[in-house]
């Protein structure tokens, strides 16, 4: 046989991802929210909160004299990631299960890991587009600098989003209903944002909190982004933490996955 036959695991994965992507684009409300939320968040935080544009004086280099809004750039991305990974993604999967969309697919050779990864990829693409817009908005409105190490920043973002999505996949596997998925999602949403520096961005996070935070998916992403964005280092340890989450959470979610 000279025909190229994809292994059963991968067969149809491309078509599934493309179809999920098309279906996502048809849902205008979701698209507008997904794409517009991160840039509006950055602009909103910067304009609405008092003191965001004033330089902070008591910070160490390289942060000295930076306005607070710059420190919030990685946090805004973390917030966007958390919203998609912990709310949008598990709700989508559980809704498909409740409707019987997954039950229909259960009878085909498509495997759970294909379904999960396709959903993550579509959401990741939307997130990347939205966050590029958010960075551009921050640069235009507040003069937020571009990351010093763009490749490391991009890597940190993608790995962090994928790792946090792993938590969302686990929630989708465990939650019996969409309402439960939302509840569990919110339960981990705020602690994860806390570790991402929502209330103590960048270097203002206490050392002990930061030491714990770097072992959470979103905290690791936030710290890796800080390093790549402002310090110019390569955040190897954080990247390893995020990769480890992916390596553990995805197979676990696929194993616990229920079609109906």
């Amino acid at each position, binding site marked *: 046989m000279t025909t190229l*036959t994809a292994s*059963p695991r991968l*067969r*149809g994965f*491309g*078509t*599934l991802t493309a*179809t999920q992507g*098309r*279906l996502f684009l*048809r*849902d205008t409300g979701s698209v507008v929210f997904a794409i517009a939320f991160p840039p509006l968040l950055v602009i909103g935080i910067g304009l609405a909160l008092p003191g965001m544009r004033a330089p902070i004086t008591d910070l160490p280099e390289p942060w000295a004299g930076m306005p607070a809004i710059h420190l919030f750039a990685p946090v805004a991305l973390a917030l966007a990631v958390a919203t998609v990974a912990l709310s949008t993604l598990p709700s989508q999967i559980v809704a*498909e299960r409740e*409707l*019987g*969309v997954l*039950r*229909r697919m*259960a*009878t*085909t*050779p*498509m*495997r759970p890991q294909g379904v999960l990864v396709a959903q993550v990829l579509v959401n990741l693409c939307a997130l990347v587009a939205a966050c590029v817009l958010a960075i551009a908005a921050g640069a235009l409105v507040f003069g937020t600098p571009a990351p010093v190490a763009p490749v490391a920043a991009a890597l940190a973002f993608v790995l962090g989003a994928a790792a946090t999505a792993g938590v969302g996949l686990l929630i989708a596997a465990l939650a019996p209903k969409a309402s439960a998925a939302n509840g569990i999602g919110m339960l981990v949403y705020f602690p994860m944002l806390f570790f991402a520096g929502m209330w103590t961005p960048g270097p203002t996070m206490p050392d002990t909190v930061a030491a714990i935070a770097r072992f959470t998916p979103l905290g690791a992403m936030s710290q890796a982004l800080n390093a790549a964005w402002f310090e110019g280092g390569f955040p190897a340890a954080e990247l390893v933490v995020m990769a480890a989450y992916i390596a553990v959470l995805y197979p676990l979610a696929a194993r616990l996955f229920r*079609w*109906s």
Partner: protein
Amino acid sequence: MTTVVRVDALRKSYGSRHAVRGVGFTVEQGEIFGILGPNGAGKTTTVEALAGLRHADGGTVSVLGIDPQRDPAAIKEVLGVQLQEARLPDRITVSEALRLYASFYPAPADTDELITGLGLAEHRDTRFAKLSGGLRQRLSIALALVGNPRVAILDELTTGLDPQARRAVWDVVERVRAGGVTIILVTHFMDEAERLCDRLVIIDKGKVVAEGAPAELIRGAEGERVFRMRLPVPFDQVRDRLQDLADVDTLTTVADEVEVRGGAHALPAVVLSLAEAAVVPDGIRTLSRSLEDVFVEVTGHSPEPVEVSA
């Protein structure tokens, strides 16, 4: 004939509820094989075990030589399944759904041919949410066939459809079988089973309570025939000679008619005997049992009225 599906002593419990308690049957190649039974009889659990979607507690299942319990991945490559309570995303179109599902299989059917064959050509760009119940069922059949399966399981195919749509779907099923696909049809519609199935089992409370071709089941094991006639003469005048006939079992009067129960030759024997006595009946009608009668006899209750799905 080749046996393509073999189920033996299948058992499955959910907690303390015994859904399937030793179901067994075989399906031959090219058949339309029916699985009938009241709601909760264990039909869906049985087909889910066949499709590798549900792990059985005991018994053996073999489909096309594959054990779906041991190798669910392998069975999904060769089996087409249409399940109850399954649907598609609202925004997917007919042709997108078929292309998507075709991409899951090693040697899929031509999606355009399926679309045309199932009368979906005008609706190929219609989104799932906008399809009528009948069109959704046709799409569902198309999806069950898109992997070019040799065996297809169709579960509660026409539930919620209007009579016209049901007949259209029946035609489709017969065409599919003519194309060489063995079909397992799960239904609780007696007329559907009678019309489509070559053979069937009736399952009740997790067990097979009757098995055979619809005509066989209707005829009953003893081959009993029942007919009623109106006579131009008083019944007493001919009672004795009819009573003596070997094929006649019982004679009763029902209103102005005489009901005769007997073997396969009861009718000609009675007519002949009456002719010898120069009696010509005014009218004769045979009473035929329906599959529904059989169902009531073996399960002890009438087929449930069907809830129409929204």
